[in-house]
């Protein structure tokens, strides 16, 4: 266990340059950041989004002609998991005011707010309530809460610069002005943020921030927020029902064109059933498990972009799905930790990125896309990556975490990053003494379904919140703005949906005509495929096993 002999040798190089790098940091001297023009050049040459053949134009649906990641296009250009003819629309199994699809941060926040508006709520979620990327967010949540040095004005500028000025300005305005309210709300719900004795919250820099506005709870900020929201939803069990292992596979419309519920799939019994609702909030999160361009991912098991697919099929357009976020620092060693997220807070706390020679090659607080492109460049073009033992042709870069103890005092790494410290310790690596080996990993879906600042969409009764929506982050999200996105827009969606149901009349006759229409469009576009979507769960079976699965049709008892 621990580092191999070759790696231990290479670490000596990092140790050699460390004292000088620490001294520079202490003196306030940073590695020069790239100019906006240099950033553009770096992205175009080295970011995976710009790789030839990575994107494909959609041939069907509301965003026909838009080029996005081909793995997502494959999901869009596929047939429904169910034959729309077979859905019995007269047999409704659940009726509620607001149906929320997705049990992560956005969905749960929406449930709480809708309930406070007097709505009865059902959360339908594919895995367990709370199994979501929200749970995994480590670093923190941004909000301009310190009026003596920060304001929504600066937060807005940072968000736009990170997103290459392409963001939807009104969504950003909503996010940055709602941000401090969210922090106050979470505090009131009992989230244990790190704070001083007087109650003042700890805040740190994130990449691309001009002020320290990253609030955090150790290195498990997302988990702390998620489990708190979930716990509160459980206190409201009378009004908030949760259906687990029940992913939505299609949406329902009524004869007036209002979204009116969904078709859910019981993952265990393989039955489908219908939920009729006066409003639907889509909060299914992202799609990292589609493994865009074959990248490893930090995303949770259920992140297969289901909401994108069924929202798109119903007629809601998409944007910014050409831009995928690769987190600069995914673990690549040891093998069992591969793809695991190493929070940006490690760099926020001062750890450099260094190459095989122990040299810095990039400022450690560039926005994520720039940082990732720079790491890829260092490992490919420059050839200064660290070869990963046992994985020919794969390289990594050192994330010099021991600097943090030297900068902030012995024990800081263990105190500030307890989860990662314990984990690596188990693998025989002490990250307060030894650097970590990292490489960019597929992390976030920057884009998604189109929605308005009140979370409404072009389909009445259909609302969008969190990672499944696109626009607020432009082409690149900054650290700490995803926990913020899910809580801000989750709350907004819950409020809007809670109001919407009051003005909505009786639900008309249910239909899934849009599915049949979409199938027709596929045929007209001459797309011949046996693919069905949404994917629901990724398939990690080996080719060897598949070769021996000889069942051709699934009839009878054994599947």
């Amino acid at each position, binding site marked *: 266990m621990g580092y191999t002999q070759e790696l231990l040798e290479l670490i000596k190089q990092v140790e050699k340059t460390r004292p000088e790098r620490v001294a520079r940091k202490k003196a306030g001297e940073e590695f020069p950041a790239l100019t906006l023009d240099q950033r553009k050049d770096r992205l175009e040459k080295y970011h995976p989004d710009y790789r030839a053949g990575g994107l494909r134009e959609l041939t069907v649906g509301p965003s026909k002609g838009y080029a996005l990641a081909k793995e997502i296009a494959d999901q869009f250009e596929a047939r429904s998991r169910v034959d729309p003819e077979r859905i019995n629309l007269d047999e409704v199994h659940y009726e509620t005011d607001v149906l929320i699809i997705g049990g992560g941060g956005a969905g749960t926040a929406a449930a709480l707010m809708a309930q406070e508006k007097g709505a009865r709520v059902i959360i339908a979620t594919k895995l367990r309530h709370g199994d979501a990327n929200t749970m995994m967010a480590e670093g923190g949540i941004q909000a301009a809460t310190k009026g003596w040095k920060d304001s929504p004005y600066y937060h807005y500028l940072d968000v736009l610069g990170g997103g290459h000025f392409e963001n939807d300005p009104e969504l950003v305005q909503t996010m940055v002005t709602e941000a401090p309210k969210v922090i106050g709300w979470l505090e009131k719900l009992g989230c244990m943020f790190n704070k001083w004795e007087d109650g003042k919250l700890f805040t740190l820099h994130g990449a691309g921030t001009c002020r320290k506005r990253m609030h955090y709870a150790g290195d498990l900020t997302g988990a702390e927020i998620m489990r708190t929201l979930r716990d509160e939803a459980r206190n409201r069990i009378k009004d908030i029902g949760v259906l687990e292992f029940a992913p939505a596979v299609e949406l329902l419309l009524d004869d007036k064109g209002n979204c009116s519920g969904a078709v859910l799939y019981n993952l265990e019994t393989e039955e489908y059933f219908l939920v009729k609702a006066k409003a639907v909030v889509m909060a299914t999160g992202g799609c990292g498990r589609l493994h865009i361009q074959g990248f490893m991912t930090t995303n949770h098991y259920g992140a297969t972009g289901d909401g994108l697919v069924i929202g798109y099929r119903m007629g809601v357009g998409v944007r910014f799905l050409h831009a995928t976020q690769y987190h600069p620092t995914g673990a690549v060693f040891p093998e069992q930790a591969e793809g695991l997220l190493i929070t940006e807070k490690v760099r926020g706390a001062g750890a450099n990125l260094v190459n095989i020679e122990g040299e810095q090659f990039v400022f450690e607080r560039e926005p994520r896309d720039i940082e990732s492109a720079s790491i890829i460049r260092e490992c490919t073009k420059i050839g200064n990556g660290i070869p990963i033992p046992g994985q020919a042709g794969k390289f990594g870069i050192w994330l010099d975490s021991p600097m943090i103890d030297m900068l902030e005092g012995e024990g800081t790494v263990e105190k500030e990053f307890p989860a990662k410290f314990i984990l690596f310790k188990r693998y025989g690596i002490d990250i307060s003494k030894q650097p970590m080996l990292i490489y960019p990993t597929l992390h976030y879906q920057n884009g998604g379904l189109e929605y308005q600042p009140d979370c409404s969409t072009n389909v009445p009764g259909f609302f969008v919140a969190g990672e499944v929506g696109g626009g607020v982050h432009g082409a690149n999200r900054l650290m700490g703005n995803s926990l913020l996105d899910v809580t801000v827009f989750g709350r907004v969606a819950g409020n809007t949906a809670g109001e919407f149901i009051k003005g909505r009349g009786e639900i008309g006759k249910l239909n899934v005509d849009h599915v049949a229409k979409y199938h027709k469009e596929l045929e007209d576009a001459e797309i011949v495929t046996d693919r069905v979507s949404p994917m629901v769960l990724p398939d*990690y079976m080996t080719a060897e096993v598949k070769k021996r699965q000889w069942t051709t049709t699934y009839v009878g008892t054994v599947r």
Partner: protein
Amino acid sequence: MDTVATQQSSLVSQAPDLAERTDLVPIFIMGKKYDVPSTFTIQKAIEFAGYQLIRGCGCRGGICGACATVYRKPGSAKIYVGLACQTVVEPNMYLTMVPFFPANRAVYDLEEIKPDAQALMKAYPELAKCMGCNTCTKSCPMDIPVMEYISAALRGDVEKAAELSMSCVMCGICASRCPAELGQYNIAILCRRLTGRHLRPRAGHVQDMIERIESGRYEDMLSGLINADLQTLRKLYVEREMEPHTGDEMWEPQEKQFL
């Protein structure tokens, strides 16, 4: 025809040479033998064996608590525990996942409930049944001193219980092993929420900022930015003043008109 087989090739190629690996070791999944790569986590090994996980798999990163697993090794009576996504396989281990275990959960109003021993005992009377056997601590995959936080809760030291249980992933192994039938992790989250809500002072600066926003102070500034052209935005972005990394918490910028 474009087929699923081609669609999925990118997923399978995640580990292209799996079948040719020479470092296979035997493990027993619910008693049945499979040969799996020696460096794999239990989770990857189960998938390598051919299982499609539905339950027992969530974040795959050691924080969601979906994949609690218990195992034994041959020739020993000891019960080991771990999260399947974090624990590397060992030759001849025999294991089962515990993807769900029921536990009592109280419904409470956080605004009303007091952060003391009485309130905890009322919500979870089974607390009194703890016999101090320490099985919970020994069975925690996150190395949390579970029994210590339960003792703290019994004493009414809610804050201590909160701090000790901070890295709890609520996987439920403690509850599955407890002879006194406690649902420790539900008691722990109550302690943490009580601490966050009632025992730690609120951040005054957050309330100040909310008041500033509600007074409309930033509306013109933000609409100025929304209506600015790209060139202006780029200039404002590039020239914005950076708070120094090692600066004091009470650092103040030169430019104050946008605060």
